[in-house]
């Protein structure tokens, strides 16, 4: 895990002191709300429906147990005993008092965590594969480069007043678990023909009211050029981004309006000027950062499929959990364990202070002190000895954190929606709760298999509804909450945007509609097909018929 150096410490401490003075000036009336708003946003502080909300970064999703304990402490001391993990690997606190924020930022700085650039028109928290450094299919740990980019973009004046917010995601694996094609810049490691590892650079992806899948602006980029190339993309964006219209200000609009080729020309021309400048990353610097991400000292163990299979055969519940929540590790004898924050009926991503403390204790004991936050609003332990899996499962179960539903119908992404968010059109959490209570039969979850349901409470799409296999968007029709379904979205390496199913439905019809979609899939899927495969083969028609013309659909079937 990356540890701050003296520069980081100094910068973060100075920033916390600066914000303390700004809050003081706001409370004394020296600053008006209009003057203060941009300052608070630069420190992750929003005003939501009920209170101030503080968004705290978890860079590239990696947390130590010490940091998680601090999150618990903040929740207990300054909030209502819980926090909410978001789709950007951050944590949000919903009930923060303005007067407490300076103390909170100082407390967070003690464990090397900040809220800097978690909002505003700047480069936001840089996200990554939550299996980074541990995945079996990975070429290299992307967090090294995520950290390099974090250091380069943090408080960089050139990127502090961009036309709009700017999101970067990286993956080191061919299997994309970080939704990189839905980011302003997505970076995917792969090998070129000479066998060298570098990045495919994608640009102009994004969700919100005008969603786009990112385009490849460069097939292969040597890692030493990462900063200069990103800088050139940002420079062109800074120059051409529409500052006059916030709905057209994201890079995706510019890239799609001017065309990828033209954007590429501008970037490459700029890059020619700076590619061999001081921005060229010295290998020594990569090595220095790499040292922080060195894998821990693993014990020399072997995989133990036989022992595990014995227990799995005896205890079906453990077997279900192993199948759904446990992933392969690159080191023999170890596994990755996904911790579901989606028990039936609970708000996705929410976690109480006591549970955070308990998870931090388990991470100390069973995951070499490391926890990851993923964009599907779950946590992962990335270094679990297979010998400990059964014990860990029992302990997670006691905490209601072992629902075997990772990447299934009840592993729902859900934004805060109208229960908290100032911009919302409708609630979203109650829909997630209805669905997770509806799909409780774990055998059925396993039968349905790989599935994503993503819910947003408005067009801003924080709940990634465009890329859910089933996307659910809350809309407001004459003062009433309705829900618009889309099908066929995906955020993986073959990302796609969902298609609109039909007219929006009232809340009480959503679970039945989702069930109908799932049943239709089960009825028409071919061997080995995931929902997405069936959808791509059969199209939307059978699902539309089944949801909106049930009688006719049955007659045809």
């Amino acid at each position, binding site marked *: 895990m990356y540890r701050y150096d003296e520069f980081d410490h100094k910068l973060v401490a100075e920033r916390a002191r600066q914000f303390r003075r700004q809050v003081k000036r*706001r*409370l*004394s*009336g020296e600053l008006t*709300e209009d003057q203060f708003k941009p300052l608070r946003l630069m420190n992750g502080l929003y*005003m*939501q*429906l*009920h*209170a*101030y909300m503080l968004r705290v970064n978890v860079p590239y999703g990696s947390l130590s147990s010490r940091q998680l304990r601090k999150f618990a402490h903040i929740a207990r001391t300054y909030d*209502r*005993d*819980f926090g909410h993990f978001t789709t950007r690997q951050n944590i949000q606190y919903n009930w*923060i*008092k*303005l*007067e407490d924020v300076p103390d909170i930022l100082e407390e967070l700085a003690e464990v090397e965590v900040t809220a800097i650039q978690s909002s505003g028109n700047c480069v936001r928290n840089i996200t990554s594969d939550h299996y980074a450094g541990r995945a079996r299919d990975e070429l290299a740990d992307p967090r090294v480069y995520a950290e390099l980019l974090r250091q380069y973009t943090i408080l960089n004046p050139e990127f502090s007043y961009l036309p709009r917010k700017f999101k970067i995601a990286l993956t080191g694996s061919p299997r994309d678990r970080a939704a990189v094609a839905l980011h302003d810049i997505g970076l995917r490691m792969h090998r070129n023909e000479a066998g060298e590892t570098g990045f495919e650079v994608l640009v102009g992806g994004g969700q919100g009211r005008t969603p786009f899948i990112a385009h490849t602006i460069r097939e292969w980029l040597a890692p030493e050029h990462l900063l200069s190339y990103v800088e050139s993309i940002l420079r062109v964006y800074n120059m051409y981004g529409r500052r006059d219209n916030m709905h057209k200000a994201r890079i995706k609009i510019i890239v799609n309006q001017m065309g990828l080729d033209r954007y590429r020309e501008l970037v490459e021309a700029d890059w020619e000027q700076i590619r061999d400048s001081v921005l060229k990353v010295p290998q020594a610097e990569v090595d220095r950062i790499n040292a922080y991400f060195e894998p821990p000292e693993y014990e020399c163990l072997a995989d133990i499929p036989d022992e595990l299979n014995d227990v799995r055969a005896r205890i079906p519940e453990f077997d279900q959990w192993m199948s759904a929540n446990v992933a392969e590790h690159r080191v023999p004898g170890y596994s990755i364990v996904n911790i579901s924050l989606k028990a039936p009926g*609970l*708000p996705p991503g*929410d*976690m*109480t202070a006591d549970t955070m403390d308990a998870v931090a204790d388990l991470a100390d004991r069973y995951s070499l002190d490391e926890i990851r936050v993923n964009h599907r609003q779950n946590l992962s332990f990335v270094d679990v000895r297979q010998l400990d899996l059964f014990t860990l499962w029992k302990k997670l179960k006691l905490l209601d954190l072992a629902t075997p539903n990772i990447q299934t119908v009840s592993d729902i992404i859900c934004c805060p929606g*109208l*229960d*908290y968010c100032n911009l*919302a059109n409708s*609630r979203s*959490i*109650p829909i997630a*709760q209805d669905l997770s209570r509806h799909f409780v039969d774990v055998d059925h979850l396993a039968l349905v298999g790989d599935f994503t349901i993503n819910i947003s409470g408005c067009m801003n799409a924080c709940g990634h509804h465009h890329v859910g296999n089933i996307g659910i968007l809350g809309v407001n029709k004459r*003062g*009433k*909450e309705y829900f618009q379904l889309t099908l066929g979205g995906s955020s993986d390496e073959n990302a796609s945007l969902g298609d609109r199913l039909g007219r929006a439905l009232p809340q009480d019809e959503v679970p039945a509609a989702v069930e109908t979609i799932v049943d239709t899939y089960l009825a028409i899927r071919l061997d080995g097909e995931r929902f997405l495969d069936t959808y791509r083969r059969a199209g939307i028609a059978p699902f539309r018929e089944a949801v909106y013309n049930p009688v006719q659909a049955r007659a045809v079937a």
Partner: protein
Amino acid sequence: MQMIIANRLTDGRVVFMDDAGDWVNEIADGLLLVSRQDADEHLSAAQQAVEENRVVDPYLIDVAADAGRRRPVLVRERIRAFGPSVGLVPQSRGVI
């Protein structure tokens, strides 16, 4: 009927203007405004409270009486008045 809702500057909590021009946490304690003129006058007073750094973003909401209880007409304002309809810890103070 209308009421004036805002966020308190210091802690961001939802507050309602009362008949003394103070800001109270409970919708039941806030001032009901029945005429247009009344509403406009009190909204000006609320703007004054913004300038005095007591509240942020005050505005008028429509409120109906429901079985003797005040209930904002829009779901958004009901959620603001009564708290989130969901939560790991109980939060709502009324029926959304």
